[in-house]
């Protein structure tokens, strides 16, 4: 039989002959958690991708309608468990905006430090594991060594390493100690060396560059139209960072740069993340130097914020106040309103659409997860690239399936 050398009419068609289907996941080392891709391939070239998600769906948003504002923080922790404190800060930021609570300067400062520690935490994982998936194990250990130190800092403040549940409406679970401040200062002193090691190991690694440069291109128009935020959007040239554009916590007073790139490929996304770590260090250094003293719970805002523990144990008013903020039939009423509030989480814009019916729990607590939006862009970023690029693009988006499925 003679060979037919004519080109197919439309190379992007998924119906032509000779294509094959490959199942990627749900259990695959590079998905890190549980997500599935159905790849349609022409040889090794990706023609189409169909993501299949929902393996980790656990009804978090439904639970948000049952638990009160303080209880639900334990659930938001488990969404993006790579940077749990960032979720807590975003959730209570929304609640406090709804209830109209102004935080104390000390709480603002502590939350800012934790938000930036979480950014370092998240970016180190994104970088370390993606390099591991691409075949280089060394940087992974350097990155995870530093992540352990951040876990220690979390443990010192909240008693928990992983799911800290540290924030409360209008305050924090505990005040931090001088010991904690020393730990953060020690981290700031030792981290730059490890950071330089990771940066050199990854960003100047020829194999890594060849695996990620000009792969998974996302144009600026596609990023805006597709709703991309955070490092993914900034790597495509969208100059937007909620820390600068809609400042919350202390960010208005601190000096930092918004890192952008115009390349839009995987390498640019990693590069933005790496440089953001340096900006986070700058922010923490400024914030820890000006850590004010004072109470952590907001006062004079009615009964929305919980009282300080010392007050609870030493005065009858404090005990009554504590009782009223815990008992469901005694809790203070919020406004009958709805509101969207977002913070810049390490992965992008993490927002909550909060509907309150006047009680102390949310009527609807919708999470806007950055992972979901970024993963919906994945098929369009993948078409035309090779099978081996799937892992690189997936890693550069930093998809966290628990946040994706909620």
């Amino acid at each position, binding site marked *: 039989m003679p060979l037919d050398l004519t080109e197919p009419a439309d190379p992007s068609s998924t119906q032509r002959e000779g294509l094959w289907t490959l199942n990627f996941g749900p259990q695959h080392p590079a998905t890190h958690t549980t997500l599935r891709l159905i790849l349609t391939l022409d040889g090794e070239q990706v023609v189409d991708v169909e993501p299949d998600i929902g393996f980790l769906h656990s009804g978090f948003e439904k639970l948000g309608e049952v638990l009160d504002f303080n209880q639900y923080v334990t659930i938001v922790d488990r969404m993006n468990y790579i940077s749990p404190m960032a979720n807590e800060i975003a959730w209570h930021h929304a609640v406090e905006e709804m209830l109209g609570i102004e935080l104390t300067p000390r709480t603002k400062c502590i939350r800012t430090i934790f938000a930036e520690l979480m950014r370092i935490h998240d970016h180190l994982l994104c970088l370390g594991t993606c390099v591991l998936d691409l075949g280089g194990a060394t940087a992974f250990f350097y990155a995870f060594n530093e992540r352990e130190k951040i876990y220690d800092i979390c443990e010192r403040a909240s008693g928990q390493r992983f799911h800290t549940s540290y924030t409360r409406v209008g305050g924090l679970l505990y005040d931090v100690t001088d010991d904690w401040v020393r730990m953060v200062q020690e981290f700031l002193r030792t981290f730059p060396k490890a950071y330089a090691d990771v940066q050199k190991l990854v960003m100047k690694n020829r194999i890594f560059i060849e695996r990620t440069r000009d792969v998974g291109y996302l144009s600026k128009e596609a990023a805006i139209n597709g709703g991309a935020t955070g490092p993914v959007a900034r790597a495509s040239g969208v100059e937007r960072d909620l820390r600068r554009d809609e400042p919350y916590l202390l960010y208005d007073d601190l000096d930092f740069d918004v890192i952008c790139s115009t390349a839009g490929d995987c390498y640019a996304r990693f590069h933005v993340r790496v440089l953001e770590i340096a900006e986070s260090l700058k922010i923490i250094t400024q914030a820890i130097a000006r850590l004010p003293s004072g109470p952590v719970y907001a006062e004079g805002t009615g009964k929305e914020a919980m009282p300080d523990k010392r007050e609870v144990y030493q005065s009858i008013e404090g005990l009554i106040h504590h009782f009223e903020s815990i008992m469901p039939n005694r809790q203070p009423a919020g406004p009958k309103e709805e509101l969207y509030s977002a913070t810049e989480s390490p992965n992008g814009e993490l927002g909550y659409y909060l509907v309150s019916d006047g009680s102390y729990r949310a009527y609807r607590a919708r999470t*806007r997860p950055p992972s979901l939006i970024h993963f919906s862009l994945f098929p369009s970023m993948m078409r035309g690239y090779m099978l081996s690029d799937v892992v690189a693009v997936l890693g550069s988006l930093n998809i966290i399936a628990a946040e994706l499925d909620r």
Partner: protein
Amino acid sequence: MKELPAEIDYWLRSKLPAAQVSSSSFRGQSRVCVDRPNIWESLRALRDDAGFDMLFELTAVDYLEYEGARDRFGIVYGLLSIDTGKRLIVKTFVNEPDLVLPTVTDLWKSADWMEREVYDMFGIVFTGHPNLKRLLLPTEFTSFPLRKDYPVKGRGERHNFPIITRAES
């Protein structure tokens, strides 16, 4: 850069005289409600003529148990103008049995999965959506769990899974 109109509800009424538009604001966040027949046209006008180039949020709220609510489902569109950094929440309402809305995937690509999620959780159908099927729940699931009449404990879907023993497999 396109100028964002200050009075967004007057601006929308002038663009779409037939539409019923009301506006409100809470903690500095501006919101407009548009009636259902004009929602797609309003969103298109906001995208093309007012510079709202990003749809950052699309979700629904079930107002079944909400005190004083007149409509069952509220659909929330969150729009953002990258140039000016302004946000706008656009809302519309749908009621049973006619839970149908036109899709906005032709305006913003980000609506794709968010509309699928709303369909998955609330059962609201978006006509014209290229791939409207369940996103998070299994395809054989029959309920819409984020509706207020769905119990938090579920309706036994999980407990009634067929269990295969080692001997049967």
